[in-house]
């Protein structure tokens, strides 16, 4: 297990994030993640996919191992559809009427909506296999998502999930490049678009590993809150989780 002091601080920052989320009284929660072959494979790998189902199921992992029992998470199919139609004016998202949540989505949900009483709209970005989604398209997507949310009557919360530097499931599993992470988070928290979009895939792979490709979820959130800066509530490398763990919020300008 992780060092209890480190872990408890991490969990506590998640609690604060949940309180902020609840205080915002959202009608639905969009979760932007990067899954690992739970639903999407190289037979049809979308750059972006948005859920449009009545409900979702998870976790796909062993419930005992992950500590979350099999759960049906409510969706928001009508809102999903209106958001998709809006976003599609600029960004060519795939859509999905079925989706099984892996740890990347169900773990944050379990912290943030532990009673699973908030309708969820999952979004996936291909951070997994090349050709990967270009970073500047993630920016365009984040902007389109924001415009679409602003056009709805519903109050919509947006959460991004993903690791920063990590080398999951490879011989370097457990390595974390804390310096790189802190530098990236500085760019993220300060919403420095040009610097966020300047990374090349090769640089990211060399310095932050295959897991570093998940910066796409952060970049999407930064774009959706363009012009705002954020509050880094928590960051620490937690080797047993094989990744640095981050909790941060962005104000909406």
């Amino acid at each position, binding site marked *: 297990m992780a060092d209890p002091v480190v872990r408890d601080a991490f969990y506590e920052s998640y609690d604060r994030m949940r309180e902020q989320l609840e205080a915002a009284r959202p009608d639905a929660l969009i979760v932007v993640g990067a899954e690992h072959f739970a639903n999407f*494979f190289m037979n049809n790998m979308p750059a972006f996919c948005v859920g449009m189902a009545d409900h979702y199921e998870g976790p*796909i992992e062993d419930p005992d191992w992950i500590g979350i029992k099999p759960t049906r998470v409510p969706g928001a199919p009508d809102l999903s559809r209106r958001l998709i139609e809006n976003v599609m004016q600029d960004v060519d998202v795939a859509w999905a009427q079925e989706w099984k949540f892996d740890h990347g989505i169900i773990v944050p949900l379990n912290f943030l909506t532990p009673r699973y009483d908030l309708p969820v709209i999952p979004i996936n970005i291909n951070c997994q296999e*090349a050709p990967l989604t270009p970073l500047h398209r993630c920016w365009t997507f984040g902007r389109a998502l924001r415009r679409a949310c602003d056009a709805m009557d519903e109050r919509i919360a947006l959460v991004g999930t993903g690791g920063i530097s990590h080398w*999951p*499931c490879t*011989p370097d599993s457990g390595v974390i490049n804390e310096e790189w992470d802190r530098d990236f988070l500085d760019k993220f928290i300060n919403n420095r678009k040009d610097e966020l979009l300047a990374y090349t895939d*090769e640089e990211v792979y060399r310095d932050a590993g*295959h897991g570093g490709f998940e910066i796409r979820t952060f970049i999407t959130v930064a774009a959706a809150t363009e012009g705002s800066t954020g509050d880094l509530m928590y960051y620490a490398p937690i080797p047993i989780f094989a990744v640095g763990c981050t909790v941060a919020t962005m104000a909406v300008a």
Partner: protein
Amino acid sequence: MSLYNVQKLIYQLNRDPKVRQRFEADSESVIAEFEFTDEELGALRKPDIGLLYVLGVNGQLLMHYAALHGYEWNEYLEAMREGVRQHGKVRAGVYAMLES
């Protein structure tokens, strides 16, 4: 180059309980549904997790194939390291990004 087929087999084993059951009862019947090179076939049958890694199988798939064959986590990591020692750098797939 049938890396796609290797990854598809492993993906299906991981995502479809029916395929996994058939594999556990008779792995050859499942393997026979795909085209593989001799090297891939050998690596899948043994299994040679290290060689599969070098052939380019994504770790997010490979870890499941290792687990299916009873590998503990550290055994899995060590098998990949041994694969690189024996067969050299990863040849294809996303981990070969800096080679190409």
